């Protein structure tokens, strides 16, 4: 491991893998956290929501303990449809195919974390072209993911017009991705070596058009008192262990793009956008503004960069590596042990696990109608929380 050291709690807390506690500058032995079921108070009821319900896009069971109207405690169970993905023993190339499918909607982040961990484990030199490629992928993915969260925030508010407008923008971004990488969700981008990354003409025009339209819509949403009222004061949380947009919405300048050596964002003049409202509205603002900063990076790379693909064919090295990248939901950490070109042990620390805990705590004291807005504001993906990697 070039960047990560085994030490006691250096830097900010990121989360837990099966075997380690992850900090921004070190990895430590695991801490056992036992989740106690909430006490049932007389007169209270537990409202069961999910796992099979029309309101959620993934299978998740949420138990809301309530004395009526107000939510006293929330227990999210992302393991109802638990997936087990066996990666140990597979070649890096074969493992990669499964890694990019852990959370298909954010496959690019998983690809980046995995590839940078491989690079770290085998002590290979940093490939600037690959970094640019991964950053381009991840920022396009971030735009799409944030658009998706904003779209989902419009839905429970009954804002049909902006909901569909954002959905259209999301689709246009996906088509841009497809035009550049040959797959709408980046699948197979690094598996099959190609001569070079082909960036079709007119992409910058398309991205700038999307950005302009989004700017207008984003302004309009902020002007809508009805929309803002649903988000302001909803799901307030301020904890030092927050990650991603949730942390940045609570005033913390936490971003793997500036505090992880895995990918170099310095050359793009990137600075995280910070809000201090701590609520769903602050998370909405952070995501909206990050779309602009991601567009800025994407346009720079498309205009001036030289993105390049990774080549996972014929790797036979041995070593242990770790990498941390900023996925749209927050820090995504990958620990990887390679034995003669095969995965010996792999562990991920996914941001949705942290965001689920943040959601549970932020929901206490809120009322039922706040539920969907708050849930969507964290951009939680059950696919990366309800999964066991072997």
């Amino acid at each position, binding site marked *: 491991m070039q960047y990560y050291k085994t030490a006691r709690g250096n830097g900010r807390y990121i989360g837990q893998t099966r075997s380690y506690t992850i900090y921004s500058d070190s990895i430590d032995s695991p801490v056992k956290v036992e989740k106690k079921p909430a006490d049932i108070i*007389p007169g209270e*009821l537990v409202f069961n929501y999910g*796992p099979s*319900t029309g309101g959620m896009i993934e299978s998740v069971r949420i138990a809301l303990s309530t*004395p*009526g109207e107000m939510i*006293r405690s929330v227990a999210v169970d992302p393991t109802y449809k638990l997936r087990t993905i066996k990666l140990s023993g597979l070649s890096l190339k074969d493992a990669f195919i499964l890694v990019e499918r852990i959370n298909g909607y954010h496959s690019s982040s998983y690809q980046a974390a995995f590839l940078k961990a491989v690079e770290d484990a085998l002590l290979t030199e940093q490939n600037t072209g690959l970094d640019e490629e991964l950053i381009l992928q991840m920022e396009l993915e971030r735009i799409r993911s944030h658009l998706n969260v904003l779209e989902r925030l419009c839905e429970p508010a009954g804002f049909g017009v902006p909901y569909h407008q954002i959905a259209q923008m999301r689709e246009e971004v996906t088509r841009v991705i497809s035009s550049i990488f040959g797959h709408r969700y980046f699948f197979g981008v690094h598996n099959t070596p190609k001569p070079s990354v082909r960036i079709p003409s007119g992409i910058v025009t398309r991205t700038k058009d999307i950005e302009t339209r989004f700017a207008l819509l984003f302004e309009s949403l902020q002007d809508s008192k009805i929309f803002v009222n649903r988000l302001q004061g909803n799901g307030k949380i301020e904890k030092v262990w927050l990650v991603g947009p949730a942390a940045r919405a609570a005033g913390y300048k936490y971003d793997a793009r500036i505090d992880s050596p895995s990918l170099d964002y310095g050359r793009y003049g990137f600075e995280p956008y910070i809000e201090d409202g701590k609520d769903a509205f602050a998370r909405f603002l952070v995501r909206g503004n990050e779309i602009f900063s991601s567009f800025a990076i994407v346009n720079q790379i498309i205009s001036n960069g030289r993105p390049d693909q990774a080549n996972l064919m014929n790797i036979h090295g041995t070593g242990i590596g770790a990498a941390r990248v900023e996925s749209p939901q927050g820090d995504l950490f990958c620990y990887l042990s390679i034995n003669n070109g095969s995965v010996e042990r792999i562990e991920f620390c996914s941001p949705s696990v942290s965001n689920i805990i943040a959601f549970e705590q932020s929901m206490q*004291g809120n*009322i039922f109608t706040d539920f969907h807005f708050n849930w969507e504001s964290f951009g939680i993906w059950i696919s990366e929380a309800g999964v066991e990697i072997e």
Partner: protein
Amino acid sequence: MNPVYFSLLITAVAMPVGIWWRKASYALVIAGSLEMAVFTLLGSGNLAYPLAYFSLIASIAWILISIFSMTYSAGYGKWLTPLFAMTVFGMMVILESSDYVTFIIGWEIMSIPAYASIGLNKEHWNAAYVFMVFSEISTVFLVIGAIFAVQETGTMDFRFQSLTSDLPLLLIAIGCMTKMGITPFMISEWLPIAHGNAPANDSALFSATMTLMGVFGIARIMLLSPSSIYLGFFMLAVGVLTVFFAALFAYVSENMKMLGGFSTIENNGSILAAIGLYVALGEGVLKTYLLAVIMIFALAHSVAKTGLFIGIGTTRKENFSEVDSSKNSFLTLGWFLVTMSLSGLLPTIGGLGTWMLLESFFMGAYQYGLIGIASVVAGSMIALAEGLASASMMKVLSFSQVHGHPKGSMKNSEGYVLLSTGVILILLFVLANFLIQPQFISGLPSVLVYNGFTIQSKFSAADFGLISPLYVLVIIIFFALAAYLVFDRRKGKLRIVPRWNGGVDFDQYYTSFAYASNIRLMLKGILRTRIRDGNRQMSVVDVFWFAMQSFASGYRRFARQFAYRVMNSSITWYMIYMIVAFMLVLILAFVI
């Protein structure tokens, strides 16, 4: 001898009989009540319209409660029955009294056995002490009021006579209001505490008829007193404030009997508001109409409240969370009718009472000036509180019946009594034309509503509003039957499927506590809703009761400190204290 006095005699016999023969004692109370009702109807009692109605109302309630008590009181030892009979006897004395002394004696006969029956049936005596403290406060005001009333005559004649000052009415009203659970500028939780801790038959007796004695006491003196705009406004303000807060606290109450207690206060507040408007107004049609409102509302309250506590008694529980209701169609129908009446819905006497009450306040607007403004504000507040009252009754109906499991220990006869109470509420509605002064009865023959079938609300020669009870009932029955015949084609087509709960096998029932939490949160400024740290349990504070308790404990602390620091066995200070106290008494006596 006045034949109504036989009812007193029969009920007096019921007291000793009750020690050994429970059912016989209740049968004697029924006989005494029936005798009083019949002879009151025949006009043989001491009272004429409108006061005679109180005897009739109380008799109906006593009969129903006594029938229910025959099975209900089986597990409450030998003292509950004689104490019950004695309380009824005290109330009969109040109703038949023609002077202040007999009235106050009846008041005490009514209160003392009630105190004993609360205390004997609870592990803790707190509720009984609370009851007795407030009972004696009410007696003190009654005695002072009576002294002022007698002083006005300039003789030692204690009989009820016309008064020239409104002071006796003010003092006696405060005394009676205390008994009704109302105290000036606040509602007091004493009544729900006391009524909530008594056996259900006693709770029914206290809520339905003991508070009725308070209304009777005020009405008795009100009819002898001159109009007084200030006193009227005072009663109106206290009544309206009481209605609102009592409805609010009833809605958030988890103890069924305490909910009933708050509902009683809410009803009494409405009656007091009507009395306030009556006292404030000069002679006129509206004033006469208000008398009918007071009687009809008191009737509706007493009979329906009897039913409410009988219903609660059938559950054999105190809190909604403990209820395992008996699945009994008669009981459910009875519950439905009783709660409908207490919600102010037609076709019940409660619906008529609420309609008449609101009409009187909206007609009050045409008095213009301060009375007009006060009437509109009061009417709006009462209408708001009626909404909350309906929600409370919906809570009672839902969580005592719909969500229950058939495990209750109710006797079938209790279901019949509750159903009978519900039917009486409908019958009283249909027969209300005969209970109201003829000047408010008319008809609309042009639309086939014949003369005698319509009740008018009016403040002048022309009518303000109309209602035809029998026609309302017929129309409701007609449309209900039509809907049933047209749409009830379930046979062979009804498909019952398991409940879908997110795809998991998980049963959870909505709770009564959760039902009321919307108001706990929306009105947290008034209810002082608190979420405790740690387990974050939600609770509300009755700010008035809290303030009263704080004042009492603060005074006790002050008195203790005063005793320790100043009067610490010093004979000099004792002497100074006695001289000052003596002089103060002399000054007060001189001033009064």
